[in-house]
């Protein structure tokens, strides 16, 4: 069957796109440490801070900005109240200051805080210390003679409590800590940067890819089927999409159903080719097997027959894109070493060679409206190629290029890819690795391919949950429950505990390589959870090999 027929018959997978949580989320480092708490005169609070900061400088690598420096009476967690509130001061008289690590010597701290001891205890109305919340409406405190403290009260008592050393990941976690340990502030922006992708970027990219993810993944499976049938590889496929070439969102449903126009944003596809290589002058495994049809090796794992990771679908897709960036001449040495193997690969490579308008004629579909008006080959590199920082690069995709939008308007809103020059930019045109491309895979890629996709600077990677592999490098936790975990879910601690239990009987590692804070490069990772999917159908239970 030729490529166009295959494309026409691709039936999109039905399901949901779910972010893969980072290992920082699934296995949060819950680090706790001791801290001192002292009750001081509420009126001297700012002086207390000055004195503390100058005497005991903070560790700038652990600024502990999530811990409130002061707690009012009503903010003290229930469990600490018996110890902390036993002195019986009024909420209008005192406040509690936190001195976290690095902990000073207690004597030095007591001496430093001595000037700020609470004023003499008033003998007020019978009060219940736990009934605190009336503080904000309390009228201005009576002018207690703060400066005339009696020597008897000049001793500062230091209480030792335990505080969380890492910022909370969710508001729920912040509330939990605040009610059990010490008041904690949740800052949605700053602390997450390396812990997990910024939630707004994650959800916007997910929303952008969700409408077509089922089609791209179905195509990845079609490529996989072609690879397996040929005997040249295992049934693993990759589809690479340039989000920049997607039709603008309003039009994504229109025309998506007809013909093969839904493939317009695809820049390359590749299938696995592990049995295709000759090694040491010997015939390739596929040649030894002879004939067509799936390789006899598909049913088992024996490293000797597995070729190598550079023959995996993802690595082959990366190399096909590189060959376009390099503008390889046909028959070049590189092409001989890493040849094009499958009809679908050939189809998309050819498509990437011709200007967008000709592609439309060729495929006979009416996307229309993307005429380049003579600027195709020499279009200046779009803005995205001039960006370097990760966050900027991600943010760039949230809005389309102005010029693409204008073209759409001129074309009467009939849709069409936001054409901006060649589909795969060469080195001279500002093309760089696989910058900002998305890759859809039929299976969870092996660890080697996961790092390969990070080194190639892909924006996002998507695979079907039932394509999970025991040798995979993306999943960050076992499938805990059939209900997908939403971005910004508020129960990381609970699910992580479930995961840890499973890990004791694990048959695989959960690396979550797409987003690890230690690595220089990160990508957004998603799983596609098919509607009504049962966990038993996962490839994790099939033949273990590297996808």
């Amino acid at each position, binding site marked *: 069957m030729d490529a166009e027929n295959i494309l026409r018959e691709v039936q999109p997978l039905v399901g949901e796109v779910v972010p893969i949580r980072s290992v920082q989320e699934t296995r949060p480092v819950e680090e706790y440490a001791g801290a001192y708490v002292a009750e001081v005169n509420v009126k001297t609070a700012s002086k207390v801070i000055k004195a503390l900061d100058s005497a005991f400088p903070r560790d700038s690598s652990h600024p502990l900005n999530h811990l409130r420096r002061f707690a009012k009476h009503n903010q003290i967690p229930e469990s600490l109240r018996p110890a902390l509130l036993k002195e019986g001061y009024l909420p209008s008289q005192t406040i509690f200051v936190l001195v976290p690590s690095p902990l000073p010597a207690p004597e030095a701290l007591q001496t430093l805080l001595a000037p700020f001891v609470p004023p003499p205890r008033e003998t007020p109305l019978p009060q219940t210390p736990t009934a605190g919340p009336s503080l904000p409406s309390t009228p201005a405190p009576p002018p207690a003679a703060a400066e005339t403290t009696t020597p008897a009260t000049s001793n500062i008592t230091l209480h030792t409590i335990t505080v969380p050393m890492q910022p909370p990941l969710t508001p729920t976690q912040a509330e939990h800590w605040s009610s059990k340990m010490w008041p904690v502030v949740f800052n949605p922006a700053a602390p997450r940067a390396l812990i997990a992708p910024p939630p707004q970027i994650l959800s916007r990219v997910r929303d952008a890819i969700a409408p077509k993810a089922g089609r791209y993944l179905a195509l990845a499976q079609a490529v996989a089927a072609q690879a397996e049938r040929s005997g040249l590889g295992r049934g693993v496929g990759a589809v690479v999409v340039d989000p920049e070439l997607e039709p603008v969102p309003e039009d994504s449903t229109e025309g998506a159903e007809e013909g093969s126009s839904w493939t317009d944003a695809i820049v390359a596809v590749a299938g696995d080719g592990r049995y295709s290589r000759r090694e*040491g002058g010997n015939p390739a495994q596929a040649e030894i097997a002879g004939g067509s049809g799936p390789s006899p090796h598909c049913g088992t794992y024996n490293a000797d027959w597995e070729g190598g990771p550079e023959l995996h679908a993802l690595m082959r897709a990366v190399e096909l894109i590189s060959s376009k960036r390099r503008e390889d001449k046909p028959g070049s040495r590189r092409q001989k070493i890493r040849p094009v193997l499958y009809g679908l690969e050939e189809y998309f490579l050819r498509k990437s060679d011709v200007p967008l308008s000709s592609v439309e004629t060729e495929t006979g579909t009416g996307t229309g409206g993307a005429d380049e008006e003579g600027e195709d080959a020499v279009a200046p590199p779009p803005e995205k190629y001039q960006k370097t920082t990760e966050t900027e690069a991600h943010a760039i995709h949230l809005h389309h290029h102005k010029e693409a939008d204008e073209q759409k308007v001129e074309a009467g809103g009939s849709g069409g890819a936001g054409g901006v020059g060649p589909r795969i930019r060469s080195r001279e045109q500002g093309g760089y690795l*696989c910058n900002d491309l998305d890759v859809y895979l039929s299976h969870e890629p092996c*660890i*080697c391919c996961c*790092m390969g996709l990070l080194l190639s600077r892909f924006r996002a990677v998507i695979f079907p949950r039932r394509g999970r592999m025991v040798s995979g490098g993306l999943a960050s936790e076992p499938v805990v429950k059939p209900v997908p975990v939403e971005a910004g879910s508020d129960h990381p601690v609970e699910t992580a505990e479930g995961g840890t239990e499973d890990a004791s009987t694990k048959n695989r590692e959960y690396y979550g390589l797409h987003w690890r804070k230690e690595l220089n490069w990160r990508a957004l990772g998603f799983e596609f959870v098919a509607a009504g999917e049962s966990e038993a159908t996962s490839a994790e239970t099939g033949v273990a090999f590297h996808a």
Partner: protein
Amino acid sequence: MDSCHAYFMKQALIMGEKALETGETPVGCVLVYNNKIVGSGMNDTNKSMNGTRHAEFIAIEQMLENHPRTLLRSTDLYVTVEPCIMCASALRQYQIRTVYFGCGNDRFGGTGSILSLHSDLSIDPPYVVHGGLFREEAIMLLRRFYIQENENAPKPRPKKHRELKTSFQNSVPDSQSSSPTI
């Protein structure tokens, strides 16, 4: 240090030096079977526009032109920098016997610095890793490279005021570099 190990690591350093001359990240390696070099490689990511073309892959590709992949089971790798996560996994899939590296790689290292893919649970047998051979020479290669600007990046960072450092901390670079025998 065994003179054999020294010789092969020097060959890897020469490959790294070549990489530096051609504007590639200066990492070089050689594959050694039966005391003979059967493959050598240097980083090729800039020239190839392919971020996965690391020295290890180039060397393996060269070796497989003349040898079957089963030979890798009795082959050792000498590489100037700890293999990255990608290469560490590839070496495990290829069932390399032993990896000797120069300096650790605290950004991407896959054999001890960030992950320990040589020994983690996997469907392939583990391999042995020794770090710290000619560590300072390997680091100097990298320093000489990183004081340059990366003209291939979309937005190179200016580095005019950087100076080449030549001092070293004497600490052992990596926790797993337990290499008393070499």
